């Protein structure tokens, strides 16, 4: 049995559903029924305060409610959450990961990391990006790159020494320490800034972790409950970048900081069927190869595939996918109200009632008539 109320916050509704489960259990010599109480809230604005108040009041008026559980939780996520951790990123992670969405920043960091370190002059000359010095200053401020100084012999151009800052080189030179190749004081040699990526930057780059962090932030910003998201799920040889459970639907994400090619498609396809995902979402920074789209179109998979083909389109595309899914969930949650939404006129029962009522009055009339007749006879 179910009903709905309109909440005090405009454009918000709550569907209340009571469900008697068929399983019965014996408790204190009495036969008791397990009843589930479900409250589903639909709104366009945040109504957390009103939800909390209602849940508290309903909990108070019914004995036996210990706690409220998520009514839209997905069974696969619930099962996997026992073995895998839910994403637990900090504010610093979210803030840093956003900067990786800038291709100039990402390219600079990947270039520096790939060779273990680079001279500032080499970065500026090699990278084909606008305002490289600005980018490098920004990366230093964000503590994504670290500077050291390298002393290069003026005569041989050989790398002589490395120091954490200019001051320490000056301090060493004061003690008369000279270049072993050309005998010049170290302060007289060429000094170059040497850049390396920090541990934080490396963590973000490895396995495209920055994409995972950005995806999680986007999901949470789009009001996906925290307990519905799992990231980096490793099972056997399989590794899933992210799994999201919304209602009965399971969304499987594949993240690529390059183009998603046909080679990736086969592995993705096997993961989709292995987990029985309803929706597969490929987010690739350099797009998806046309043959992949053709391949998935030809297969007619059970899962619906969505493609997010750039960094910038993550949030708009994701919001579209989630919105579509939420309206589907809303339809399902409201479906039970359909049978309450119409008044059934019980015509057959009405005819019976009509006849029974008339029988009674007819009998009374008959009795009255008989009584009158008898009285007439007596007269």
């Amino acid at each position, binding site marked *: *049995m*179910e*009903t*709905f109320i*309109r909440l005090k916050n405009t*454009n918000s*509704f709550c569907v*209340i559903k*009571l469900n*008697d*489960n068929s399983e019965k*259990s014996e408790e204190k010599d009495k036969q*008791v*029924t*397990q*009843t*589930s*109480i479900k409250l*589903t*809230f639909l709104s*366009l604005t945040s*109504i957390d305060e009103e*939800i909390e108040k209602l849940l508290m*009041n309903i909990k108070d*008026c*019914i004995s*036996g409610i210990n706690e*409220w*559980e*998520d*009514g*839209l939780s997905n069974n696969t996520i619930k099962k996997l959450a026992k073995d895998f951790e839910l994403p637990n990123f900090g504010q610093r992670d979210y803030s840093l990961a*956003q900067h990786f*969405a800038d291709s100039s920043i990402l390219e600079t960091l990947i270039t520096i990391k790939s060779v273990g370190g680079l001279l500032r002059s080499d970065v500026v000359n090699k990278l084909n990006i606008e305002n490289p010095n600005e980018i490098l200053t920004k990366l230093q401020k964000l503590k994504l790159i670290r500077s050291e100084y390298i002393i290069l012999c003026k005569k041989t151009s050989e790398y002589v020494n490395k120091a954490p800052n200019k001051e320490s080189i000056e301090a060493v030179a004061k003690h008369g320490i000279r270049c072993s190749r050309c005998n010049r004081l170290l302060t007289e040699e060429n000094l170059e800034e040497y850049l390396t990526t920090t541990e934080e930057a490396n963590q973000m780059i490895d396995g495209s972790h920055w994409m995972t962090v*950005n995806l999680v932030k*986007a999901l949470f*910003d789009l*009001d996906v409950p925290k307990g519905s998201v799992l990231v980096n799920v490793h099972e056997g040889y399989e590794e899933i970048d992210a799994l999201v459970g919304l209602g009965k639907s399971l969304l499987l994400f594949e993240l690529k900081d390059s183009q998603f090619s046909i080679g990736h498609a086969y592995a993705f396809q096997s993961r989709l069927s292995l987990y029985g995902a309803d929706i597969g979402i490929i987010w690739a920074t350099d797009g998806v190869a046309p043959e992949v789209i053709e391949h998935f179109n030809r297969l007619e998979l059970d899962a619906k595939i969505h493609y997010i083909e750039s960094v*910038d389109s*993550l*949030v*708009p595309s994701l919001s579209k996918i*989630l*919105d579509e899914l*939420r309206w589907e969930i*809303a*339809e399902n*949650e*409201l479906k039970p*109200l*359909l049978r309450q*939404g*119409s*008044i*059934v*006129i*019980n015509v057959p*029962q*009405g005819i019976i*009632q009509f006849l029974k009522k008339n029988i009674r009055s007819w009998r009374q009339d008959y009795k009255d008539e008989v009584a009158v007749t008898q009285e007439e006879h007596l007269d």
Partner: protein
Amino acid sequence: MLSEFNSKEEIILLKIKSYVSNIFTEKTEIIKENIKRKLKELRYTLPLEDAYNKYLEVLDLPKYPIGFDDSVEIRYFMGRFLPPPRIFGHEDILWRLL
């Protein structure tokens, strides 16, 4: 930039939250009545019940006691056949949210 799209104000999405609790009870009817009483105490209206009562009023029929919002059955013979009126069907709720 990703951050440009991350502003919540730009995207209005339908929000759905659902909470469930399982309890053992002797009678579901009591829960039903308790919830109904609490909702009225908190000044919420039950549109289905209101609409049902209004419908009976229009037809000049006495109010028939109904439990939650269910068993909306008019056990009266109208003298003529009336089409079952649909009140606040779920499509209407979705329409209002849109």
